[in-house]
């Protein structure tokens, strides 16, 4: 699976992709296995090769609210590992037996220090992705407000 199918590495040159591929490690995880927990120190980012991984957030320590399921090859998650304060903002659980590429922050940081254009491209991709997530969260908030105001009408 080429890393170029991942939003994080979109638009990178072949040589840049090859350098990232060289530091990526393939891992297999089983259905039900946790990859990382919300609030934990974040030091690695993941790219899905096959399978499915769910991202969740814990509510009042009582239950996990589903945020997203990653099923597409090249789906990327754990990007908190690339942005201070380097803490995972969600919990990740394997929804099906999966194969992932795991990339350590320190390896990616080394590559971006050697190639500032690479770092700039990755940060632009992260910003675009987070803006999309922000837009979706705003939309969700609007739905909750509409429900609340309609219920106050009665």
């Amino acid at each position, binding site marked *: 699976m080429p890393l170029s199918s991942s939003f994080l590495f979109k638009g990178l040159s072949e040589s840049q992709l090859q350098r990232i591929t060289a530091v990526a490690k393939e891992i297999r995880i089983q259905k039900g296995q946790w990859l990382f927990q919300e609030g934990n120190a974040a030091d690695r980012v993941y790219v899905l090769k096959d399978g499915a991984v769910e991202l969740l957030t814990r509510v009042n320590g009582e239950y*996990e*609210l*589903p945020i*997203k*399921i990653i099923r597409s090859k090249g789906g990327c998650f754990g990007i908190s590992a690339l942005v201070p304060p380097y803490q995972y903002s969600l919990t990740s659980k394997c929804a099906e037996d999966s194969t992932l590429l795991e990339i350590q922050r320190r390896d990616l940081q080394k590559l971006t220090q050697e190639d500032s254009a690479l770092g700039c491209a990755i940060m632009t991709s992260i910003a675009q992705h987070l803006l999309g997530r922000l837009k979706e969260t705003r939309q969700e908030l609007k739905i909750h407000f509409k*429900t609340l105001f309609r219920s106050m009408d009665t």
Partner: protein
Amino acid sequence: MQQKNEIKLERQNDTILLHIHGDITAHSEPFINEAYKELNDQGTVQKILIQFEEEAYINSGGIAVLIQIIAQTHKNNQQIGITGLSDHFKKIFRMVGTTKFTNTYNRLEDALESMSQDK
């Protein structure tokens, strides 16, 4: 890119079924609201059954959309049921509290039978 939800309406005696395809997120709101409007345009509807096809994934935004629909049915004195949820989502719906306002059923047949008995 966000996919459009395909929603089909079907009448089964006094119950209107909403067959919903695809994952349910905040982006599903216009499609589900449109289907709810279309359903009500068909005349007086007292019983609505939402059927999720292919074990849909429902995230927090999708739950918000469903809460919105459940609140509207409550306001319009309509009965609403849900079927087609995986065990994972049945548990989440219980935890979130939506099951206080709607029944969830394992099978479509069970849902239709149970809802037909309610007056």
